[in-house]
């Protein structure tokens, strides 16, 4: 699989993504500077975490003017797959490839911790073939991960099976009102969503950071199967 990682000024998780898809999963990975218009003919585009444009104006807001993002839109229109991680998810919402917005964490703290995620939909490319209800462990590191959308949008996401991941406790129980299992206060404990066709996925947690034994990323609850699924057709 050919993977292209878009690098914005302020992105800081691009190298982790390259390491994950390139070194660990053996794919061919290109880094595409945000001003480039050649996406390098990818099978998957990844928008990495970080602070693109310094989070100026609003997190992810200024990325919409990057020439590479215009190409990403064209690529998505042709059925291309995009994975937006953390800041990448925020960017996908700002360019309206995904609905909703990420607000500041409800508890007003930057959260740097492990969370449990429940796979709630097999409809996206990252969860196709993964059993619904599977719980994975993943790190989060964000100050603005509180997913918000109006009620109409939330109903649509839920009804169409577009909520891909939800924050949960270690047993897989979801409780949006719990500060423990839903630390950033996201609506419906939503951690990740997809577009209608399941070709664009955004999630706040960082699966690419927890794929190696050294960081406890293997074994039960590993995120590895999710990234492995990205290359399935």
């Amino acid at each position, binding site marked *: 699989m050919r993977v292209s990682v878009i690098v914005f000024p302020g992105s800081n998780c691009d190298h982790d993504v390259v390491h994950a898809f390139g070194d660990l999963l053996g794919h061919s990975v290109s880094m595409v500077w945000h001003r480039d218009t050649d996406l390098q003919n990818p099978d998957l585009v990844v928008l990495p975490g970080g602070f693109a444009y310094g989070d100026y104006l609003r997190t992810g807001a200024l990325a919409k*003017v990057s020439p590479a993002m215009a190409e990403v839109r064209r690529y998505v229109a042709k059925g291309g797959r995009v994975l937006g991680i953390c800041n990448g998810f925020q960017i996908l919402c*700002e360019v309206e490839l995904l609905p909703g917005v990420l607000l*500041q*964490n409800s508890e*007003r703290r930057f959260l740097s911790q492990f969370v449990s995620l429940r796979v709630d939909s097999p409809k996206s490319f990252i969860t196709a073939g993964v059993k619904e209800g599977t719980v994975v462990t993943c790190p989060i590191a964000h100050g603005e991960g*509180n997913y*918000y*959308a109006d009620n109409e949008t939330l109903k649509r996401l839920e009804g169409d099976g577009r909520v891909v991941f939800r924050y949960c406790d270690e047993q897989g129980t979801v409780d949006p009102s719990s500060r423990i299992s839903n630390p950033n*206060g996201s609506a419906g404990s939503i951690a990740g969503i997809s577009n209608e066709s399941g070709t664009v996925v955004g999630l706040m947690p960082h699966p690419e950071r927890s794929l190696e034994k050294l960081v406890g990323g293997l074994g039960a609850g590993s995120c590895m199967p999710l990234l492995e699924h990205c290359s399935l057709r």
Partner: protein
Amino acid sequence: MKVQVLIRLKSGVLDVQGKAVEQCIHELSQADLSVPDGSAESGGAHGSDSKAPASKAPASKVSAEAKSTTPGKLLPTDSVSQVRIGKLVELQVKSSSFEQAKVLVEALCKKLLANPIIENYEIRQG
């Protein structure tokens, strides 16, 4: 032509920054103004390599001045609530009239300056 855009969070959208500031306002309103804030002592710390403690004389001078003003709290308790923080964007726009400038700035607001899911905007002449 100078144009100003006020961007505010829609009511009902959680304003974490506003809540944090409101919290600080409450704490500040409880602050006892007769206690010197030590600003005279901290002057010695700026750019100085000296580890010598600040002299006592300036501190007592500050407290004497503070005591001469009305002691007590900055604000009555619970006098401030519902703090919401927005943004002001100022632009210079080439146009022959404010109405014309407003059309241009409105497009900018919809496209970039404001996120319509969570923000309202107000355009006015600067």
